[in-house]
């Protein structure tokens, strides 16, 4: 039982990365009907931006003699990198997706794929192939909760991601912009005629998604302090699958699917050899899609690719 609960904690942490990344995919997909294949690499870039911001802040503290506690630096890093990465998201939308708004959706997906490759290669070209290690911002302490060991980092990661998801949920359901987004995901042909500008909404969607991805990147850097240019490929594609699995237009679904994927990936190695992890995870996804072809919360809708 303790073993199970211990793994539960790990799965919550691992799932929150997937969930945070999946939210960005899901938002772009719900509102603009694009596969934003660049999102995994935006997550990677967010982690690198977080690394840069954290290093700069640490250097600044060292130079000015200002004694900032690690928590302050961490929260500053998260906020600043989320803002910076949002600009990247807006740029990606402006360059890659806006010219293709009336084009076939598959073409936009290809553009996203190519932007992702450019981000990866650009990173390799600028920083080189060596892996960077994320600075240790907060001291790791372990709490013993009746046989289950929980570090403060794990609590922080799960808490921050849940808080961000809650904030996003409130934004989508309580504000006027959120209402516009929900309307857009309901019908993206009529809603622009009602005075909702897609040219405002689309950058906003990408900015929010990228900000969440950056937060995921920094949290990932806290948990696994090794950054390499291809980490976005690894997590991004799985998060993409989770996002679609959640169902179109459902933030809750994407988050839930992200957590489920995390649970599968943590619990499969408990029973089977760990090399079977991907195989079993994707087989389960295939089974789910066979019985619920529109995801957990998605409604059947015309998903014809506009060729």
């Amino acid at each position, binding site marked *: 039982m303790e073993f199970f609960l211990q793994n539960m904690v790990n799965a919550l942490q691992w799932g929150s990365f997937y969930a945070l990344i999946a939210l960005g995919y899901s938002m772009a997909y719900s509102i603009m009907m694009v596969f934003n294949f660049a999102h995994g690499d935006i997550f990677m870039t967010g982690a690198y931006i977080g690394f840069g911001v954290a290093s700069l802040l640490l250097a600044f503290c060292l130079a000015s003699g200002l004694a900032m506690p690690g928590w302050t630096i961490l929260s500053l890093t998260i906020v600043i990198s989320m803002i910076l990465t949002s600009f990247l998201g807006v740029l990606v939308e402006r360059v890659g997706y806006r*010219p293709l708004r009336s084009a076939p959706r598959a073409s936009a997906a*290809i553009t996203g794929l190519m932007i992702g490759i450019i981000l990866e290669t650009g990173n390799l070209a600028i920083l080189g192939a060596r892996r960077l290690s994320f600075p240790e911002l907060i001291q790791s302490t372990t709490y013993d909760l009746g046989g289950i060991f929980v570090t403060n980092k794990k609590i922080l990661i799960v808490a921050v991601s849940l808080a961000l998801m809650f904030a996003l949920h409130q934004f989508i359901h309580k504000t006027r912009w959120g209402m516009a987004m929900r309307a857009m995901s309901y019908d993206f042909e009529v809603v622009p005629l009602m005075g909702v500008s897609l040219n405002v909404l689309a950058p906003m969607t990408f900015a929010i998604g990228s900000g969440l991805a950056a937060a995921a990147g920094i949290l990932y850097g806290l948990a696994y302090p090794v950054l390499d240019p291809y980490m976005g*490929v690894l997590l991004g594609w799985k998060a993409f*699958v989770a996002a679609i699995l959640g169902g179109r237009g459902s933030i809750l679904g994407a988050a839930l699917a992200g957590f489920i994927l995390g649970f599968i990936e943590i619990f499969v190695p408990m029973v089977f050899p760990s090399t079977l992890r991907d195989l079993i995870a994707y087989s389960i996804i*295939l089974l789910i899609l066979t019985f619920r072809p529109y995801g957990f919360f998605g409604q059947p809708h015309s*998903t014809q690719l506009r060729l």
Partner: protein
Amino acid sequence: MRRDEQPPANTRPSMDELSMQGQAPLSGMQRIRAAFAGVPILGWLVGILCAVFIERYFGDEISYQLYLPKVPVLFGCLIMFKKPLLIPSALAYVTLIYVVPIAASARLSAVFTNRIAAVLDRGPIALSCLIHVGLLYAALHYWADLSDYRLLVLKLTMIAVMLTLSINLINGYMGEFSCSHPGFMALGAYSSSVLTLFFFGNHSLFGPALLPAALGPYCFPLALIIGGLIASAGALVVAIPSFRTRGDYLAIISLAFLFIVKSLIENMEWVGGPRGISGHPNWSSLPVVYMWMIACIWVINNFVRSIYGKALNALRDNEMAAEAMTVNTRKTKMVAFMLGAFWAGVAGGLFAHVMRFVNPGTFGIQRLAEILAMLYFGGLNSVVGSIFGAVSINLISEMLRPLELYKWIVIPLILILVMIYRPSGLLAFREFDVKDILRPKHTGVGRGE
């Protein structure tokens, strides 16, 4: 549905006729185009053959005179990027060996080649195709003979043509966004590798050879076909869910299929697991790959021009309407998926025997991005677009090799530009009519009558 409507070729006055009527003064480019409008495909093939033979016999001498270290392998591009000082020499070499001989011999022989083409045009189309295909093979054979690098690039390009054509069947003609192609390729590659190594190879995993090696090259096509059939059986995993769901969810299913295949192979120790298999016999020679490519083009072109191809297009445009018009949607989807997967499997088998090594890592997301790039660069829903896309992306990526890392910034940028200005690809929605292409060009000066 956008479709590039093209006026029929014979109603459009050619440049030559325009100039003879004196309607408009021709610019330089137009004049060049007018001069070569009368050259049939046969003429160009003859020109290419001439150029190849000139390079074969005088290439060394010319490159020595131009201070080039050796004969430029890929049209001088590699040399140009490595040593910018040699750019003029490389350009001169390309002009002397390729541009001038091809242009001159194509233009000068136009009278004769048009006559021959007219004779061939009256005969059976198969004979005419065979002659053209043979001439092209001769040119490619002697071109690739000069260096092993060229040979490898050529083989990989041909395999890429097969892959792009087969994915075009699913993504272009049927209009699904299938991401499972590297998975089909892996199935074919592994099946045929296991077969050839089990029966003909003294391999550590599969024991000594069971059949004499002399039989090998004759059984190789059989191994490829079995590989293709296994790939098309695997395609059922994607094809059957496609009855119920379309578009985005099918994309996820196909993506999941790709990861499942990759992970499955990684977990099968008896085929080497993540380390892969090596030591394939060297049976994927240039003629073998070439013949398979021609067969693939022939089959797929006939398929998409047949009633099945029309049914596929109908399915893409409106599934319900297609069903109302008596299209058997399930059968059509299944046939398209299985045919596409078959050729992907064959291409995978050839790929394994060209590289003489396969591992599961080869068939990942990277390969998917490459195949999709070739498909969308060339153009959806067109055989000629697939061929163009595969050849040009392959050649571009080989030519930009000296740029090393920056190659993967340049190629995506090119593709993004293509997507922005031609969202369906450069040569999308073209019909590939062999008879029309091989026809003699009876315009102006090239006339042989």
